[in-house]
Each structure stands twice: as structure tokens, then as C-alpha cells.
């Protein structure tokens, strides 16, 4: 069977190279060609926000979802966007995978008519700026580019101002001083060339997360043999860990490159980290209240436990 797989990422992105593409190849090999893929990267088949609908409607059979694009129907899954939790892609991915195997995050996805196969996260968002931002006083009244409501809350909790600017315009906005700082996943920094326009990049902060979930339409998945289903999931688990580790490694390499290029890549001191994390508690509290779902607090508690070791 040939599955049409939608993807909003380009095939040159690390998430595609080490995750999606690798998983597809592994599945094709393991199933001896019983399952093959037609890959539609770069939003060719559907826009980022339309990927889930496209799978449901039979336009696609499978898709790599960026969960923030589907917060309207997957509110509980947006727990991963909260700041102050996971510290590496590997840690975050382990937590996410556990929650996708069983519990409210999985049920919420199943309810939309698709089955989660595996999920992984981007390394935690860091702050990139033209000055070193540490203690809360440094953040006061800074114009910070954020994407989505949770990050806007994050900026506000730190005393800054969250500003929405489309991705392609971030480079010029930073270059020309319209923005003082940007919250960004480090793996995506080269793509937007932000390292050309900032002088300070934090390396051990956790200003929010981002999760991807590979899904297959449930009626299609349920119709597969138990063996094939197991193959898809087993290879998914392997791909999830692999892409997480590859991203962590790539981030380390990037940091070394930026350091060599004269950028101040800095670690928050314990004191700074404690102060910042203290301020960020408000964001989680707001999240529980905002999404108004009876399972929100339980999900947050589980997530807290899974990411605190």
C-alpha cells in the first residue's frame, strides 16, 4: 500500500533528514515494500494548519503534524509548548513518547480520527538577542519575537513584550532593531540566519517547546496487519529517539560554530535560572486556566514528573 504522507517541513530540515525521511525508508525496508510512501514536503499537499484535516478527509493518509498548528482541536498536546520543562530534545521526546502511548494526549489525538505513531520535540527554545539577557531586570520592556500565545505569555511573565512577526520577516526585524530579542529553537537558527544579526545566544534555557506527531488515519491504520502496525510503531520509536539525539548533537555543533564566530553563547547561572523559572510558573498556571479542560492539571502534573529527571 502506498501512503500519501504530508509534511510542512522542507526535506533539507534536520527533522526531515533524521526523522521523517529516515522513518519512511525504514518502514519501506522492514515491510518489504508492503508499505511505501509518497512524500509531500514543504506544505505541497496542504498548508501547515490543514495537515490534520487533510488526513481526515482522505486527501492524505498520514502526516507529520506540528501540534501548535492544531491547538484548537489538540489543546492538551500544547502542554509541550510550556516553558521551564524539558532541557534537551532527548528528554522532551522521552516524555512526549510516554504520553503518546497512553493517556489524555493520545486520546485527544485519537478523537480527531487519526492514530499517533510517534512523536518528538525540538530542542528547547532559547533566547537570542543583541544583549545578554539574564536576571528578570534585563528582560524589562524588551521587544521579544514570540510565536503563539504561550510564548507571548512567556515574554510577558519575564517583563518583556511579546511581538508577533511572520517568520520570514524576523531577520530584518532583528537586524534593524525592531526586535530586541527572539525566542527560537536553535536548530532553526541557521535557516533564518539569525546568527548573523544577534550577538548573544543562551544555551541552557527552556523557553518553551515544540512537538511533532506522526499520524496515520485511524481506519487505514486499524486495517493493517498487527505485524505491520508493530513495525510502524517500533521503527517510529527508534526514529523519534534518533531525531532527538541528532538534534541535540547538531545544536552542540552549532553552538561551537557560533562561539568560534565570536557570538556570546552563554549559560544562565543557577541564580538566573532560578529567577527566570520562578517567573515562568505563571505561564503554566495560565495555561491550565485558559484551555479549560478538566484533564489539563493532570496532564501538566504528568509532564512535570516526566521531565524532572
Amino acid at each position, binding site marked *: 500500500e502506498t501512503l500519501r504522507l504530508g509534511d510542512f517541513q522542507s526535506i533539507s530540515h534536520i527533522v526531515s533528514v533524521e526523522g521523517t525521511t529516515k522513518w519512511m525508508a525504514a518502514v519501506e525496508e522492514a515491510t518489504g515494500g508492503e508499505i511505501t510512501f509518497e512524500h509531500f514536503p514543504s506544505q*505541497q499537499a496542504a498548508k501547515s494548519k490543514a495537515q490534520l484535516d487533510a488526513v481526515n478527509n482522505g486527501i492524505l493518509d498520514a502526516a507529520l503534524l506540528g501540534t501548535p498548528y492544531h491547538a484548537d482541536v489538540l489543546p492538551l498536546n500544547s502542554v509541550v509548548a510550556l516553558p521551564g520543562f524539558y532541557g534537551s530534545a532527548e528528554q522532551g521526546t522521552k516524555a512526549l513518547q510516554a504520553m503518546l502511548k497512553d493517556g489524555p494526549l493520545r486520546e485527544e489525538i485519537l478523537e480527531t480520527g487519526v492514530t499517533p505513531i510517534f512523536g518528538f520535540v525540538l530542542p528547547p527554545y532559547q533566547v537570542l538577542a543583541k544583549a545578554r539577557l539574564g536576571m528578570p531586570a534585563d528582560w524589562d520592556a524588551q521587544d521579544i519575537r514570540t510565536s503563539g500565545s504561550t510564548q507571548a505569555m512567556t515574554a510577558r511573565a519575564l517583563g518583556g513584550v511579546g511581538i508577533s512577526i511572520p517568520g520570514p520577516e524576523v531577520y530584518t526585524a532583528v537586524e534593524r532593531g525592531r526586535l530586541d530579542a527572539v525566542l527560537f529553537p536553535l536548530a532553526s537558527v541557521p535557516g533564518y540566519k539569525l546568527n548573523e544579526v544577534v550577538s548573544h545566544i543562551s544555551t541552557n534555557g527552556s523557553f518553551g517547546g515544540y512537538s511533532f506527531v506522526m499520524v496515520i488515519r485511524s481506519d487505514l491504520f486499524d486495517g493493517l496487519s498487527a505485524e505491520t502496525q508493530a513495525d510502524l510503531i517500533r521503527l517510529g520509536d527508534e526514529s523519534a529517539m534518533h531525531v532527538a539525539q541528532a538534534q541535540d548533537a547538531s545544536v552542540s555543533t552549532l553552538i561551537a560554530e557560533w562561539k568560534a564566530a565570536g557570538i556570546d553563547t552563554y549559560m544562565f547561572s543557577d541564580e538566573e535560572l532560578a529567577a527566570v523559572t520562578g517567573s515562568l510558573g505563571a505561564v503554566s498556571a495560565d495555561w491550565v486556566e485558559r484551555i479549560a479542560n478538566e484533564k489539563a492539571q493532570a496532564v501538566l502534573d504528568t509532564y512535570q514528573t516526566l521531565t524532572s529527571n
Partner: protein
Amino acid sequence: MLTFFTILIVLALLMAFRVPIAFAMGIAGTLGLAAQLGVRPALAVLERTFFDTSASFILVAIPLFILMAELLTAGDVTRRAIVACQSWIGHIKGGLAIATVAASVILAALVGSSTASTAAMAASAFPEMRAHKYSDRLSTAVVSVGGTLAVVVPPSIVLVVYGVLTETSIGKLFIAGIIPGLLTASGLALVIKIIAHTTDQAPKGDPFVLKKAVKDSRHVIPMVLLMLAVIGAIYGGIASPSEAAALGVMGSLLIVLLQGTLSFVQFNKSVSGAIRATVMIVAIVGCSAIFSNYLAFTRITHRMLEFVATTDMSRETIMAIIILVLLIMGMFMDQLAILSLAMPLAFPTAMALGYDAVWFGIVVTKTVEIGLLTPPLGLNAYVASAQTRVPLGTIFRGILPFLGMEVIVLLVLLFFPQITLFLPELMTR
């Protein structure tokens, strides 16, 4: 393959029978999707295509820059500025058209969208050229071709999207666009000169009078101030390029109010005109998204580019094929749709062959920009026609000689990469 050609024939027939281009692409795209995926998925595509296409902050620059142009035109600002340029060079044959090109270059430094730039020049320069007995054919062609400068001269939406898709430095791309942009403008002026001297499409204007020229020059001041304000807002960190478009609207409104040259009725007409052009453009973008979606599912472009990548042809042949494919896509599709469809395969191919990413970006931009001028989907000609009410056929005929020049400029850029790379290399030194 048979379905694909049937769909192309359906598209051609619909367009030949004067179904609006947007509607024709929507119908053909939906039929194609139904043949490819089935009726239910095809209909499902229609659920949110129009919303997803229009709900985009980046697009906001289009209505705003058109509104800015409408206000400046209704308030007589652009006409006066062109009168000023004209009193300096209008006495030579084709002078007014060349003045229009000069104005297009300045506007291109403000605007990142070529349709917005075309709309502005069509609204202001065209009536002036018509009043001076320039042929409709030449004047509409000059504003259409001049409008394409906006995506080569920075800032440019196309270069930004290329940079993001291919992870190429946007800063370098912007710098690299300057010389090719000026080269295109010079080529344009040259073609105008040739046409002016070989046909009677561009007559001489009023004789040159130094005193009048100096006196008329004061009319340029408001426009220059506005440009300084908008560029200043972008480079001074006050506004992003999209937001600067809104500042431009406010600035234009201030100018025409201070001059006392805009009535409430004219203000309404300007807003209405901006909406009219925007609705037309977004309908085309939305419907061409449906058609591109169909193309994506046929895997046609994928297979074509994959073939190019796996063959043992020489690297020059492969580059030529890539450019040709992009040119053909440019006949039918929106620039951004082409980039998102073709770059995932064309870019790695070009890199594997050892070409420079910044150079390739400029060449690709220049190539898809030519698509704005070619039928059946030539967005700039459409905008010019919407604004001036000159028939599309006349405009496309007028564009023909300029198309020759565009291809020559493209070849020059292809054969002499230094022209493109000189400035960015200077910058990194």
C-alpha cells in the same frame, strides 16, 4: 499522464472562452484533484483553501501598497512627481517612459511585491503617458515590466521566501539583488529608446525649459519625503516591511490632506479600488493554490526534477533544464507557489552541481519574475489591465520586446555570476 493533459486542455478551453483566469484555475484544479484523489478529497480541499490563502499577515502589504498608490494617485502626488521628471527628460523621445522606469526603481526600493508596484505605476504613470500620446501598448508594458523590479531590488518577498526555503542568507540575497535590478532597469530603458526611435509609440514631449524644470522639481519633494520616512521606519527599526506599508498609507493620507487634493469621495474611491485589485489578486492566488495542489499530487514536477537529478548530463544542460522548467511553471503559476513546489528538488540539485546559493537565488527570482509577464497567468499584466482597462491582449503584445530583453539579462546573469556575487562578496570581506 492522459488525465494531466486533459486537465490542461480543460484549463485552456475555459480560459479561451473568457472564464476569469482565477475561476478557470479553480475549476481545472478541482477536476484534476477529483480525478487524482476522488471526489470527496477534492471537495475537502475547498474547505479551507481560501481561508488559508487569505489569512496571512505577509499578504497585508498587497492591499496597503495598492491603497498607498491609489491615495497618491487620487491626490495628484504621483502625477506631479512624474511631471517633474518629465520636465527634465520628457523632451527626448521615450523620455516619459524612461522617467517611469526611474520612478519604478525608486518604488522598488520601497515595495517588496511586484503586483503592488505595478498597480501604483499603472495608476499614476499610465494616465500621464496616455495624455502625452504614448501608445497604450507601450505604456502598459512599461508599467508591467517596471513592476517586476520590485522583487529583484530589495526588499523582496520572493527573496525572503527563497532564503527561508533554502536556508540561504537573506541579507546577502538582498544585497545581491541590487546590481541585477539596476541591470534590468537599464535594459528596459534601452528597449524603450529603440521602440521610441523605430516606431511612433513614444512621441517627444514638451520642449525643455530649465526654469520650468527647476520649478516643477518641488513636486517631487512629498514623494521623496514619504520614501525617506518609509525606508527610515524599516531601517530605523520602527516597523517591519509589512508594517511599513501601513505607515506608507498614513503618510500618503497626510500628504494629500495637507495639499488639500483629496475629497472624501476620492478617498472612498481609493479604498474601493484597492479592495477591487486585492480581491482579484487573492482570488488568483487562492485558485492557483488549488491548481498547484493538483500539480503536487500528480508528481509531475517531482518526476521532472528527479529525472534531471539522476541523469548524467552536463551541469550546464541541467541548469538550462531547471531554468526552462521554472519558465514553463511561470506561465501557469504564482511565484511563491513555484518556489515552494520546485525548490525542494531544484535547490539541492543546483548545490550538488556546485553552483552558488545566493547566485542561484537571484537567477531563480529573475526567472519566476519573467513569469509575471507571460500569458496565460501573467499577474503584472493582469494588474496593469485591471488598473488601466487596456485589454490584456494589447498588454501582452506590448510586453513582447521587453521579454526579449528580460531573457538577455537572465542569460547575462547566468553566464557572468560575478555580476550578482560582486556586492555580497564585497560585504563579507
